[in-house]
C-alpha cells in the first residue's frame, strides 16, 4: 500500500499527488515512470514521475482524469492508499552536457518534462523551455519550469496565455529566428510530439520524444506498448520510453493508444452513472 501524503488540484481535472514510496524515491531518475493499480479490480497504468524526494521518501505524480482509473486515483485523498505502485520503470533519460537544449512539454506532459529540464540544467546545459496547454486554466508547472529554464516560452491553443497556438509553433518561430539547439526533448500528447518532430526534422536537430502508449505490465512481458521506431518494433516500457522522434511512427502510436477507446468510454459512462446513483 502506498499512502498519499499530499494532494493538490493544479487545474480542472488535473491533480498532483505525493505518494509515500521510499524505495522508488531513492532510485528514481529523470524520464522514468511508475505503474499504478488503484484498487484490487483496478487496471495497471503508467504515469511518468513528475518529481521525487529521496530523503522524504515520496514521489510526485501529476495526472489528468480521463478514464475510470485516473478518476479513481483522483478520488483518493491525503491518508488514502494506492494498492500498487511499481517502479522506477523504463530507461532514464540520457542526461549529459549537450550545450543548448530545448524542452518542449504540453498538457500534463509539462510535469513529466520538469525533472528532465531540471537535470539537464544541473549538468550545465542552457535550457530553453516551451510549455503549453489548451487554455490558461489548464497550464501547469509554470513556476517549476521557470526555475530550471534559462528562457521559458508559454503557449495556449486559445491564446488566453502567452503565444496563441501550439508549442510546436513557438519552436518553429524560435528556430526561424535563428535560435539553435543541440538537443530537443519533448513530452506530451502524441500529436504534439509528432508536430515537434516535424518542426525539427528539416533542421536535423537531435529530437528525443518520451512516448506514452498503453501498457499492461510495464516491464517487457506483454508487448502492448510496442511501437515502430525506424521500422523496427520496440517495447516502450523496456526499450524506451525515450526514442529518436524522427524515427517514431506516430500515426501507429496514436492508433494503438485508441485501441480500447470504446471500452474505456463505456466503462467511464458506467462509472459516472454509478456515481450519480449514490
Amino acid at each position, binding site marked *: 500500500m502506498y499512502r498519499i501524503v499530499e494532494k493538490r488540484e493544479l487545474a480542472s481535472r488535473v491533480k498532483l499527488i505525493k505518494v509515500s514510496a521510499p524505495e522508488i524515491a531513492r532510485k528514481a531518475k529523470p524520464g522514468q515512470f511508475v505503474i499504478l493499480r488503484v484498487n484490487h479490480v483496478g487496471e495497471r497504468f503508467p504515469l511518468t514521475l513528475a518529481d521525487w524526494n529521496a530523503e522524504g521518501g515520496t514521489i510526485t505524480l501529476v495526472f489528468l482524469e480521463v478514464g475510470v482509473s485516473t478518476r479513481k486515483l483522483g478520488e483518493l485523498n491525503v491518508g488514502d492508499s494506492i494498492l*500498487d505502485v511499481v517502479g522506477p520503470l523504463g530507461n532514464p533519460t540520457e542526461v549529459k552536457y549537450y550545450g543548448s537544449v530545448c524542452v518542449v512539454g504540453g498538457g500534463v506532459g509539462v510535469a513529466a518534462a520538469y525533472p528532465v529540464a531540471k537535470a539537464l540544467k544541473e549538468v550545465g546545459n542552457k535550457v530553453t523551455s516551451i510549455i503549453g496547454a489548451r487554455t490558461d486554466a489548464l497550464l501547469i508547472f509554470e513556476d517549476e519550469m521557470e526555475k530550471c529554464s534559462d528562457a521559458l516560452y508559454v503557449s495556449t491553443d486559445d491564446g488566453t496565455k502567452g503565444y496563441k497556438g501550439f508549442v510546436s509553433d513557438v519552436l518553429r518561430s524560435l528556430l526561424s529566428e535563428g535560435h539553435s539547439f543541440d538537443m530537443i526533448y519533448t513530452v506530451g500528447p502524441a500529436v504534439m510530439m509528432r508536430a515537434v518532430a516535424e518542426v525539427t526534422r528539416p533542421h536535423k536537430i537531435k529530437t528525443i520524444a518520451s512516448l506514452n502508449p498503453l501498457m499492461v505490465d510495464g516491464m517487457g*512481458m506483454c508487448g*502492448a506498448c510496442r511501437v515502430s521506431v525506424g521500422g523496427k518494433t520496440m517495447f516502450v516500457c523496456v526499450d524506451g520510453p525515450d526514442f529518436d522522434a524522427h524515427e517514431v511512427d506516430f500515426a501507429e502510436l496514436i492508433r494503438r493508444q485508441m485501441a480500447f477507446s470504446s471500452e474505456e468510454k463505456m466503462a467511464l459512462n458506467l462509472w459516472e452513472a454509478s456515481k450519480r446513483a449514490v
Partner: protein
Amino acid sequence: MSNRDRWDRFKAVPMPKQPPYERIRNFNEVALGYSEEQAIMEAERCLQCANPQCVTGCPVEIDIPGFIKLLREGRFREAIMKIKEKNSLPAVCGRVCPQEDQCQKNCTLGKRGDPVQIGRLERFLADWERKHGVELPERMSSTGMRVAVVGSGPAGLTAAGELVKLGHEVVVFEALHEPGGVLTYGIPEFRLPKSIVQAEIDYIKRLGVTIKTDSLIGRLYTIEELMNDEGFDAVFIGTGAGPPTFMGIPGENLCGIYSANEFLIRVNLMKSFLFPKWDTPIKVGDKVAVIGAGNVAMDASRCALRLGAREVHVIYRRTRAEMPARREEVENAEEEGVIFDFLTLPVAYYGDERGWVRKMECIKMRLSEPDESGRRRPIPVEDSNFTMDFDTVIVAIGRRPNPLIQQTTPGLKVAKDGTIIVDENMRTSFEGVYAGGDIVTGEATVISAMGSGKKAAKAIHIYLMNKKWVK
C-alpha cells in the same frame, strides 16, 4: 453397474470434465478431479513395480509407487506427505505437468494399455489435503542467513520453500502485483484455478517466506545491491521467460493483434473477462487466429472462445504430429470447437482505415524429407498465398528470457540466447548468485523449473553453511 464392476487393469478411470457446450461459457476448471472411490480404483491399477520406471521420468523424483500404495490403502495424509517430500506444489503439478512425457510415459501398464494416471492421483491428494487442512513440515532452527529470491514463479517458490525449511530467512521479490509468476498471469483459470495457486502461495508464506510484490529487481535494486546493501548472503534468480516473440511480418502492430502474453495477462492476471466490473478491457472479435501450437496457443484459443469469439483458428506451419502442446490440451481445444489450420504460415496482416486487423495473408507449407536429425522442416509452397478474414490475432510463438537482470549485473555470464549460464549446481558466474527455471533453460515446463529451484536451494544451503565458493 457400479464403478467397481467396470474396473479394468488396462483402462484408466476417466476423469470427469465439464461438458464442452457448458464450459465454453465459463472460466471454471474443465477437469473436475477424481472422487475418493475413483482415485482408489485408479491407484489399484498400479503394479508396484520392483524397479519403478515412472520415478525415473519425474524431474523431482517423487516416490510414485510409494504414494500410490498409501493412496489405495486410504492413507491420504501419508500419501500426500510422501509427495511433498519431493514436491511442494502438488496441486499445480497434478494439473499442468506433462505427465504423458514424464512419469506416465515409462509406466509398465502403458505397454499394453493406459498408463496409471499419476498426475490425476497427485491432484486428488493435493485437493484432498487442501480440503482437510495442510500440515506444515518441520523447520530447522534459524541459520541467520538471508536469501533473496527474484521471481515468484515455480522455480522461485520452490527454492524459497526449500530454503526456509532449512532455516534460512527468505525474501521473494515479485515484480507484478500478485505472486505466482506464470501460474498466475499465464495459465488460465479453467486449467489452473487461481484459488489453488493462492493456496500454494499461502502455504509457502506460512512456512515463513516473505513475498514482496511490486518489486522489480534490476530497477529497484540490482543483484549487487541486494548482496552488498540489503544484506543478503545469497540470491536465486528465477525471473523466467519475458518478452514475447513476434514474427516481424508486415502489419503485426495493427490493433487487434496481441502477443499471447498480453492476451493471457489481461485475462488471467487482470481478470478482463470480468470487464467492466474489473477495469482492464479486452477486445475479442468474431474470428480469432492464434499463431503457434504450444500449450500457450491452446490456452489463448480456449480463452478467446470463452470471451465470445465465434470462430477460433489455430494456425500452425507444421502438422498435428509436430504440435508441441500436450495432447490433452489439444483434445480439450478440439472438443470446444477450435479449428486447426496446419501447414499454414502467416506472411502479412492487413487492416482497415482505423488501423484494426481485418485480413491475414498466409502461405501453404509442406514438410521436407527428414534431415540427418530426423526432423522434417516446413518449406513454403510457391505461389500458394491466400488470405483469410480475422479481426483478432494472438501471436503465441514463444518468448525470450527476461533481460533486465542480465543487463544490470555486470560480470554475469549470459548465453547468446539471453539465458543465464549456470554450472551443474545452478551457480552463475557471480559469487553467491544462483539461477534456475526458464531464465536458464529457455521456455520449459513448470516441473523442470521446480526441479532446478530445488537443486539450487540444496546448493545454496551448502554454500551458506560453508561460505566457500570454489571456482
